[in-house]
């Protein structure tokens, strides 16, 4: 790989996350003006779920460690962020900055929790690890249940949320939406790049064969702990976004079933595919709200869990690897074809536009 090529790669990849964030904010503007507050809330949940699913996918899908305690990390992030937002020291910061930074604080807290749990337990494998992480999730929940400072069983109410920047035309919802989309893009970009880096190859090698990886000089436990800490960080970010969009936290929310919900998303989307996680997170957030709920209101039977289970059983029989398996959106032939066609179209367009704008790297391809 030449220097020039490396620089080209760097430059090529830099703008796209910003562009996606900008596009998402535009989408937020449309949603704010065309839907009611209920739909708007559900859209915010999608972001939280995407972050949670993608972060769990790093541990379960890419590193191959089955974790049942993801809701625990989410709870740490949610409660820490909510607690901080009440502190007067934080209220000195400008509103938008504060609420953009709070997810990072929640994430850091969750990462520390992830490190503490990961260090002893990640020497275990398979079922044993699953049991330990399950136990950890419960410990977090019970601790919160008995902590008076965060409301105990009564829960933490009236959690502040961003007030936007009305002078600049940024309504509270749009501000919230922008912060959520910003963190979603940060999560996906970071995880994507980690997985496609040399460190990410280590995670994959641990998933494929621990013994072979160890024989190649990989420190398996260290790799697992790294994956676990990164995953916990983003789970904390997701928890923080959840706290400030729902504005109410109760330990009951972060029960074992919440962890299972996230697992369903990654199993459905494909263990080892971020695209799959995103699609499954959107699907699993929207379908219960806009399809199963009306169905339940008509039939008066709670079909949600029945349909969930049915989908999972059918998937496990017909597509054991989930919707996308380990493929990403860019791996599909039709996407590649489409992209090639568009790029050729654009190249022809820019060539005709002016000859000076043709970049050297563009010509070489």
């Amino acid at each position, binding site marked *: 790989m030449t220097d020039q090529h490396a620089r080209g790669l760097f430059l090529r990849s830099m*703008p796209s996350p*910003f562009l996606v964030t900008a596009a998402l904010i535009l989408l937020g503007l449309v949603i704010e003006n065309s839907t009611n507050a209920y739909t708007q809330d559900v859209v915010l949940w999608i972001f939280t779920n995407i972050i949670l699913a993608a972060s769990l996918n790093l541990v379960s899908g890419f590193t191959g460690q089955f974790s049942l305690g993801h809701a625990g990390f989410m709870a740490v992030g949610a409660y820490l962020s909510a607690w901080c937002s009440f502190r007067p020291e934080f209220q000195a910061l400008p509103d938008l900055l504060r609420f953009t930074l709070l997810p990072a604080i929640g994430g850091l807290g969750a990462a520390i929790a992830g490190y503490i749990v990961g260090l002893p337990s990640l020497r275990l494998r398979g079922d044993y690890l699953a049991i330990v992480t399950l136990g950890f999730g419960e410990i977090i929940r019970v601790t919160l249940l008995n902590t008076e400072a965060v409301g105990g069983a009564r829960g933490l*109410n009236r959690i502040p949320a961003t007030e936007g920047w009305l002078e600049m035309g940024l309504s509270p919802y749009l501000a919230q939406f922008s912060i959520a989309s910003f963190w979603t893009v940060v999560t996906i970009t970071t995880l994507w790049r980690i997985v496609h880096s040399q460190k990410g190859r280590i995670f994959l090698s641990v998933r494929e064969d621990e013994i072979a990886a160890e024989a190649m000089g990989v420190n398996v436990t260290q790799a697992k702990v790294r994956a676990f800490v990164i995953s916990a960080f983003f789970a904390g970010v997701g928890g923080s976004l959840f706290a400030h969009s729902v504005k109410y936290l109760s330990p*009951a929310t972060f029960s074992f079933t919440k962890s299972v919900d996230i697992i369903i998303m990654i199993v459905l989307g494909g263990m080892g595919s971020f695209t799959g996680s995103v699609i499954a997170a959107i699907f699993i957030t929207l379908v219960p709200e806009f399809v199963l709920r009306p169905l339940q209101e008509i039939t008066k039977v709670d079909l949600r869990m029945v349909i969930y289970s049915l989908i999972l059983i059918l998937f496990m029989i017909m597509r054991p690897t989930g919707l996308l398996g380990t493929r990403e959106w860019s791996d599909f032939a039709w996407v590649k074809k*489409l*992209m090639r066609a568009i790029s050729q179209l*654009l190249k022809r367009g820019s060539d005709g536009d002016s000859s000076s704008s043709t970049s050297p790297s563009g010509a070489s*391809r």
Partner: protein
Amino acid sequence: MLQLKSSTRCSNSSARSRFLHLALAIFGAVSMLQLASCTKKNAQPSHVIKIGEYGSFTGSEATFGVSTNEGLKLAIKEKNAAGGIKGKKIELISYDNQGKPEEARAMVQRLITQDQVLAVIGEVASTRSLAAAPVAQQYKVPMISPSSTNPQVTEIGDYIFRVCFIDPFQGLVMAKFARENLKKAKVAILKDVKSDYSTGLSDVFEREFKAMGGEIVGIESYASGDTDFKAQLTQIKGKKPEAIFVPGYYTEVGMIARQARQLGMKDVPLLGGDGWDSEKLWEIGGEAIKGSYFSNHYTTESDNPKVVDFIKRYREEYKGKTPDGLAALGYDAGQILIAAMERASELTPQAIRNEIAKTKDFVGVTGQISINDQRNATKSAVVVQVADKVNRFVTTITP
């Protein structure tokens, strides 16, 4: 746009195509969402009055939500049969929150912004009322909680009401009952330190009982989940109380009753609050709990004609089912809301809110209800005695 151009210049065109591809996908998503929202939005027909309800119809607390819903539906059905409000029929929109606080919040959001209801009724559990009440307050739509007893619920704002009494009131009721009806002078307290409810009740009981000239001979505590209470009970026995106030939940109370009898406190009655109200109390406590008293919202054993009539109508409507306390409170919440709408000069959330706040001496199934300045109900409580599987009605106590 500037950024877009510079990116194409520096990088190869696949970045641009990738972006375009994403943009396409996003526009697809937007149009789908808009489609979804268009089909969801429906104009409010002017000939019906929409009332929203949210409750736990499924999940581990499903019986709470279903009972309340049945009581509320009965109240609305009767009003519609009698011609509705100002010639308009009432339509009840009920949404299930599955016992989850975040769902409760979303459902109130949906009731108000999508269905545009004039008022909201819910929830049984204080945690879910606390989660959802800020939404009702934000949109200035009145919300009546049928049975959330935590004092914080109505502190959320001036649009939040309740038709049940709050936790501390039961402490007052039992103090009054112990002093005036049972004529006890020396009472000991055994409270659950881990529960807000229990400490709240016992603090008020202690203060009020002393004010009425009684004596608190000892205060002992336990934590919910404990199974051995002999140490505390031995301490209490040494002080020779005439009654013991145990404002806990039925599981511990049942065990406390058994162990108190084992220690030889045979004719010392236990006193408690609505946390005792469960068939399990009898299963756990057995003979030992017999003869003890607790305060409750309502009892099917009452001889009040209003209650007798309600039970009869409820049984006709729901195939012989006996209404529990939550059904009665759901019915009362519905009736108070209907009465407020009837009185309101115009059918706006603001006008209805003002009329609910003016509710005075409303004769409901669960007692005579007045809404006070804190938007809590001041009303009577009933005291029942644990007799057998069915509790025996003793008296009604008014504040």
